[in-house]
């Protein structure tokens, strides 16, 4: 069901500083900065166990309580973004870069390579990727580097498809045809015309994939994959407190999960904000 209005080419409109963008960015900045500031200011270390203060509910001394090893949850929750954010940025970023490059390449080539890449992406999607991720990581080394690679791997198809479809659309537009007719070389075409046009949706997707990536990382950690104790990471913290949920010590899993949700929320909000900023005119 369509409208007959002409579709405008989007450009960075007057909605730059809309609420979702600002709040999202703000929250992320808060988390990132806090991951260094809070541990520096706290008397507790995020990784040194303190069994005498184990399983304490939230108090003024331990605002978020302590876990089974006596670790202060407040400090750990705030230090976790060092892992959660960095790993995910690296993984999704790597996947995005590779995906965009492949997208441009397959988008430009006519015929077979493009179709094949789409079929391959289709097949990749048919697999239970979480399972494969777990398999890849646990069996080739249960460390964070492999998690980065896995995150990259699963993000490649997304960005590939996105970029390729943009390239295909832009390629058919008149000004590109004209540019080619004028004798512009392909690389110049790519950099000056294709990429800037595809940038918008890619950035939006990046934000969304970031949110998703954080959930994935936490999920993997919850299954004991990738993150080692006692490194503070939200997913593994939730794991530590999981069995305690049924015995009443709710704070151990609650706060890391809350922080996790806030982070994902922030990235999704940011994506919304970027998308809104790209809209022409008020909606």
């Amino acid at each position: 069901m369509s409208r007959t209005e002409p579709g405008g080419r989007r450009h960075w409109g007057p909605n730059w500083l809309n609420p979702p963008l600002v709040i999202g960015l703000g929250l992320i900045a808060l988390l990132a900065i806090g991951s260094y500031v809070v541990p520096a200011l706290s008397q507790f270390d995020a990784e040194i166990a303190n069994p005498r203060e184990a399983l304490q509910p939230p108090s003024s001394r331990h605002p978020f309580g302590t876990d089974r090893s006596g670790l202060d949850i407040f400090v750990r929750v705030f230090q976790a973004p060092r892992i959660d954010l960095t790993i995910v940025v690296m993984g999704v970023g790597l996947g995005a870069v590779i995906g965009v490059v492949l997208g441009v390449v397959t988008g430009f080539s006519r015929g077979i390579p493009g179709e094949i890449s789409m079929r391959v992406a289709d097949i990749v999607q048919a697999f239970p990727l979480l399972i494969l991720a777990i398999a890849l990581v646990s069996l080739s080394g249960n460390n964070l580097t492999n998690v980065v690679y896995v995150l990259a791997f699963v993000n490649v198809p997304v960005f590939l498809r996105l970029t390729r479809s943009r390239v295909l659309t832009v390629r058919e537009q008149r000004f590109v045809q004209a540019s080619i007719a004028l004798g512009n070389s392909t690389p110049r075409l790519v950099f000056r015309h294709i990429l800037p046009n595809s940038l918008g949706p890619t950035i939006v997707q990046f934000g969304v994939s970031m949110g998703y990536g954080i959930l994935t990382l936490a999920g993997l950690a919850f299954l004991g994959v990738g993150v080692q104790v006692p490194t503070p990471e939200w997913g593994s913290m939730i794991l530590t407190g999981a069995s305690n949920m049924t015995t009443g010590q709710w704070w151990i899993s609650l706060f890391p999960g809350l922080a996790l949700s806030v982070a994902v929320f922030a990235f999704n909000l940011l994506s919304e904000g970027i998308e809104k900023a790209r809209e022409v005119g008020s909606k």
Partner: protein
Amino acid sequence: MTDPQLSVRGLELEIATRRTSTAILHGVDLTLATGHMHGLVGETGSGKSMTARSIVGLLPPGGRVTAGSVTFGDQDLLAKTEAEMREVRGAAIGMVFQNPRTALYPMLNIENQMGNVIKSHLDLDKAERVARIREHLGLVGIDDVDRVAKAYPHELSGGMAQRAVIAMALVCGPSLLVADEPTTGLDATIQRQILELIRSLQKRITLSVLIITHDLGVVAQYCDTLSVMSEGRVVEDGAVRSVLLDPTEEYTKRLITASDLGYIRTKRLAAQQ
């Protein structure tokens, strides 16, 4: 002169968004006599579509009529509730729009869609409905009625689709047809066909037509009367011959000169010299 079928007086319309409120129409007057075709011309943004939509009450979100009256026959349309207007639309006043292929609902075939329209206004049994649909499809000049009735919108060509749209707008027997740029999206030959169709329909089923267009040529050929609009106001109106051959307003003159008619007028003036 007999009572006009449609009479618009002092119509003022504003559109309110979250932040501001913009006045779109500043007191529009319009008269359409029964059985006539009235052209509403102007450039994009002159408010002609909004006027048409205000008449049938299909305002965009935030749209509000702030003053004026719209009288259809002996009924005050602005005083009606939405439920009452729903009865008017389709049964007393039909409306068609620019792009026929998007106007038709893509997921039902023509027969079913038209059947839905009939069901909302007339109390007919299935056989009567089918007969009426076929009759109206034939009325709009469709030869292979069976095929078109069973077809989905995407299977029809542009011209065929617009005929189906007109059939759907008229199937419940309205006496006024509002056509908002009905031929703008079509090929030139099809445009002509559709306009001829509308003209013939006028004669066969006593139809008054309000046609909105930016094409003065169409107005010159098919309309009895016209109104020229600019920036939410009616600049000039009257019988087509007098306005186009002897315009009084500057804007009208410019419009004529800019269109294909300009040439004709210059020639006539030269001939009169």
